[in-house]
């Protein structure tokens, strides 16, 4: 999906808390329906600046969590975790206030290879692109989600019947979601993995899938200034050299990567 040229306003229509997360819903009257795995660059029409260190200044990248093309105008949902001045300001937005956005940008998920069963694996806010992907693949698609603790576990409500791991054992399996994944893959060698989460988790998944010779599509993060290929800031190293994640990604084939632990990404 190509994006409208220029930044546009989108009114917040709803805001809901899920533990440590906020889901923002907005009306994107002028935008096209995004593909699963695509992202937008978001900022606020008012008060974007003056936080910690006088930031934010640049817009912030957000995977689309959910798109409701049936509604007119198109409604988009984003999942926000407050980790710094940009996400703080965004998570304070109230219904009626205005979001500024550009996008949708980037290359999203590709359908599973013939005969492969899609398996969604997410950590924390990494569930966002998986939710819209599950919407498209169907509610039966297996989803494994990892969260840090009880504050974050409510994020699981955003997907259909996920299996959950928490590091503190407050919900589901005590431990890492990669442990759930390992068990799952052992049981099903026909899986195709779709994953999004912190760099260390993605790298563990990449390594595991490489070992088992399973296809995996990883939605990565890196620091982005523009989202449309203008700044060359978002590059990640691949076997084919640096690629701009905003153009060639954010979803990359795992076999393209020597590592999914991207410098400067994550928090």
């Amino acid at each position, binding site marked *: 999906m190509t994006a409208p040229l*220029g930044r546009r306003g989108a009114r917040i229509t709803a805001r809901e808390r899920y533990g440590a997360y906020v889901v923002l819903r907005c009306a994107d009257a002028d935008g096209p329906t995004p593909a699963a795995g695509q992202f937008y660059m978001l900022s606020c029409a008012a008060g974007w600046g003056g936080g910690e260190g006088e930031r934010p200044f640049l817009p912030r990248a957000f995977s689309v969590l959910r798109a409701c093309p049936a509604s007119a105008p198109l409604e988009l949902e984003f999942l926000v975790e407050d980790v710094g001045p940009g996400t703080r300001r965004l998570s304070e937005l109230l219904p009626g206030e205005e979001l500024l956005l550009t996008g949708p940008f980037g290359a999203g998920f590709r359908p599973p290879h013939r005969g492969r069963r899609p398996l969604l694996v997410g950590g924390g806010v990494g569930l966002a692109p998986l939710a819209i992907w599950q919407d498209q693949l169907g509610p039966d698609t297996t989803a494994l989600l990892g969260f840090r603790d009880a504050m974050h576990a409510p994020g699981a409500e955003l997907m259909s019947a996920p299996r959950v791991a928490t590091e503190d054992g407050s919900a589901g399996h005590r431990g890492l979601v990669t442990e759930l994944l390992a068990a799952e893959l052992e049981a099903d060698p026909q899986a195709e993995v779709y994953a999004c989460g912190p760099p260390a988790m993605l790298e563990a998944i990449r390594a595991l899938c490489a070992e088992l010779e399973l296809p995996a599509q990883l939605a990565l993060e890196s620091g982005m200034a523009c989202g449309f290929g203008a700044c060359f800031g*978002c590059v990640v190293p691949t076997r084919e050299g*640096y690629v701009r994640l905003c153009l060639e990604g954010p979803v990359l084939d795992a076999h393209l990567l020597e590592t999914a632990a991207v410098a400067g990404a994550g928090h």
Partner: protein
Amino acid sequence: MVELCGLELAHPIINGSGTFDAIAARRAFGEQLLERFPFAAFVSKTVTLTPREGNPPPRLWELAGGLINSIGLPNKGLAGFLAEDLPQLAELPVPVIVNVMGFSRQEVAELVQACSARPEVAALELNVSCPNVETGLVMGADPDELARLLARVRPLTDKPLIVKLTPNASDVVAVARAAQDAGASALSLINTLRGMALDPRSGEPWLGGVTGGVSGPAVRAVALAQVHAVCGAVQLPVIGMGGVQRGRDALDLIRAGARAVAVGTESFRDPAAGDRVAAELELLSASADGAQLVSPQPF
């Protein structure tokens, strides 16, 4: 209409080199990019003689009202640029200015000659912010060094040769004068200010390239001072840039003497920023006393 060393521009707003990739933007925005191209001319990202991967990431760090970049001039190299990119850039509805940088006079000469030979190229912009590996001097920080460079390359092209000055100089006016005396067609300034950031966790330099260049509103006042000083000292047309976000910022640079104005960092926030700034500028300029529009509530 604005005349810039022979180029006819529909309005005074162009892009800063390295802050808009028209080919990538066409992938992101589709054909509407050509229908509503946001700039009156397109300046390419810096092209070097040989291909460059650029600096290791992370390459960006956000600041109060700006950012530091340490991109490291990734590009396909001269041959790749001329073969693959230039034909695509020629499809843009505006003149194409090719920005080049060499690490020796000989390299710059080759770049100028090869680009000049191509009809798609309307003008050349020389990025002189890097050191000359032969002399150790930053080409654009020392007037004599720059004069020697231009003496070598100016005769190699009939096309306009714009020199993009570095702001990290004790005396940018002396450098500007040297460029004028050596036959530059125009000057552009400012390039980024040298800056740095540390990883809050490790305390090590955050940027893969260790230091980087500061741009955005944070540098606007420095840009205005340098443009004002240079315009007061040379007769050449000047392309002003540095932190332009609004028509009013462009108006400031024009009032300081600039003929055209480039938008850089603001395009990251709004890909149509060039267009918006041009429209706001026109509105301001149209009013007899442009400034009244700025301060909507005079007491």
